[in-house]
């Protein structure tokens, strides 16, 4: 396919939603199915213009349930596929996120978080969907969720989300927020040759030998696609390695569900990314993610200026939860501060991992995220 007009290498000025859309194209995404919703709409708008230039498909579906279903269908033909939404649409997608987990369908779901519950605050930021990202669909499963803190990361982590999704055959969630989505910042586009792109493993056996859900050592099965002559079946029912329904067999159910969880948990160290800022000698560590981490960084710097040994652990990966990193800082630090734009979600994971040291929670709802001063005040109280 011709006419590719990739963004020139170098610095650009763009919004987070546009950076996400460009990141998808750079990652090789060639199918977008979505439904308009604030504050994610600009991702769809931008891709409706850009996808055809790459021979890719843009379609506005009739709702978010259809959007995620179409994304799964496209992924099973071999295309990298994505949808983008916000809280209400994310809720509608949950059942088919479970189908993607069960059928091990690589796909990326962008959730630009706004204030909830229900219709909530369409134009304001939130971090209220973090637990939903892990637990939103029924049943037990592992999933990957990433949290961008900048427009640059909306670009970078969209690519990373596709790479992880293709590697582990799991839906991967990019959990942005209204500010990183609508904010305009500098984005540096690297040369295509320096961008790491991962594609799903293909089977190297004949169709008669192919079992679509037979895992390899990394617990991930190679994936054939529709139209390649493998004649395979996939179902949301509990299935054996051939993909055949085995709904009455407790052994098959145990083996399948444990693997769906363990292919993420046992690869967690390879998946998880965090950013350490001034942690070596830190007495007080702020654990933050998304746009809130920007204010937290500022607060930590101000604390250092005031002579307080503060540090920041920025969570880039939210799920699987970076508990080893929290446990690591908890060995040295005297207190942890967790600011979040919700009533307390990640803080519970931090408390679980930190075990003995005190964890101060700073909740913010309904407007702008925490100011650096608000976080600094809590840091000072912890010393």
């Amino acid at each position, binding site marked *: *396919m*011709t*006419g590719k007009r990739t963004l020139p290498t170098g610095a650009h000025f763009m919004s987070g939603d546009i950076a996400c859309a460009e990141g998808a194209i750079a990652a090789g995404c*060639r*199918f977008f*199915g979505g439904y308009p919703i604030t504050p994610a709409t600009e991702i769809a708008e931008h891709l409706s213009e850009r996808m*055809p*230039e790459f*021979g890719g*498909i843009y*379609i506005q*579906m*009739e*709702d978010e*349930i*259809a959007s995620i*279903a*179409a*994304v*799964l*269908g*496209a*992924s*099973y*033909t*071999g*295309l990298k*596929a994505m949808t983008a939404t916000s809280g209400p649409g994310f809720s509608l997608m949950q*059942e*088919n996120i*479970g*189908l993607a987990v069960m*059928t091990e369908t690589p796909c990326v779901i962008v959730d630009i978080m706004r204030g909830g519950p229900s219709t909530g605050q369409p134009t304001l930021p939130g971090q209220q969907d973090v637990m939903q990202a892990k637990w939103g669909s029924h049943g037990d499963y592992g999933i990957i969720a990433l949290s961008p803190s900048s427009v640059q990361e909306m670009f970078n982590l969209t690519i990373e989300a596709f790479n992880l999704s293709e590697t582990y055959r799991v839906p991967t969630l990019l959990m942005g927020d209204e500010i990183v989505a609508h904010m305009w910042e500098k984005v540096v586009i690297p040369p295509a040759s320096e961008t790491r792109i991962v594609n799903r493993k293909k089977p190297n056996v004949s169709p008669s030998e192919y079992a679509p859900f037979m895992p390899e050592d990394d617990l991930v099965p190679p994936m054939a696609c*529709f*139209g*390649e*002559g*493998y*004649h*395979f*079946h*996939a*179902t*949301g*029912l509990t299935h054996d390695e*051939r993909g*055949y*329904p085995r709904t009455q067999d407790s052994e098959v159910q145990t083996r399948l569900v444990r693997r769906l969880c363990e292919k993420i948990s046992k690869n967690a160290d390879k998946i998880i990314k965090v950013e350490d800022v001034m942690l070596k000698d830190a007495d007080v560590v702020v654990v933050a993610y998304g746009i809130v981490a920007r204010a937290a960084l500022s607060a930590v710097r101000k604390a250092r200026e005031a002579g307080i040994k503060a540090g920041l652990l920025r969570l880039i990966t939210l799920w699987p939860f970076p508990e080893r990193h929290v446990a690591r800082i908890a060995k040295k630090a005297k207190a942890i501060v967790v600011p979040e734009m919700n009533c307390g979600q990640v803080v519970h994971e931090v408390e679980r991992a930190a075990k003995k040291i005190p964890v101060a929670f700073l909740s913010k709802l309904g407007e702008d995220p925490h100011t650096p001063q608000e976080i600094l005040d809590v840091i000072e109280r912890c010393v």
Partner: protein
Amino acid sequence: MVQEMAHPFEKYLRSAMMPHIWCPGCGNGIVLNCFIHALDELQKDLDKLVVVSGIGCIGRTAGYTNADSFHTTHGRAIAFATGVKLANPELEVTIISGDGDLFAIGGNHFIHAARRNIGLKVICANNFNYGMTGGQQGPTTPLETSTTTTPYGNIEHPFNLVHLAAASGATYVARWTTLHVRRLTQSIKRMLQKDGFCFLEVVSPCPEIFGRRNKMRTGLDMMEWFRRASVVENFSDPSRAEITPERIVVGEFVNIEKTSYERLLYEKIAQINEKAMGW
């Protein structure tokens, strides 16, 4: 010496998944049989066939067909298939599902896929109730019939599926009963040779779950109803084709030419890139 012979249609079936789950007297086997006959008569390339189903008894058809197949969540077969067809228009994407799956929980996807004219071939086995869950009322349950959730008789008006499909923009709309196997097979063949969104309703017996509550205890009783009530009226007004105990209008209702969504889409992509894509 007796030689074991392979069934002539064995290559179309995933025999390792047999026996099937369907009850004696069920029409689903007839639907699958006619589908396979149509594939065979057209010598369809099974490598390019994708069968998608939703939830319900007929939803197991995808698994029984020896092609690439996908068994979606309840109601989402058409939405999933839309992604398949647009991502790879060379694939023949057929949806075989039930009346509850396609027209209750999945109704929105049906009307929009028909409106867009996505080149999907939808076969609906209409058995008038939710068979798999034990016989509850659904969107096609006839007035006054008894189901496990309408013990005093159904007061909801059923959908007239062929009217709905025609009004939503389908390029091909037909209805047959499982009694009309030759014409049913012929209709599937026509669908498989057309470009846009095609819909076939197969009125199908469910004696074990629906029939026995409505004075049709066996498959034969239900087929007898189809024989008695069926009237072939090709290209009649689908708005006048409601199914009643006295009258089941069958035939082809719509067969028009309209450029499919995916053809328009790929033409547009080619124009944007100023070069033909040649699929």
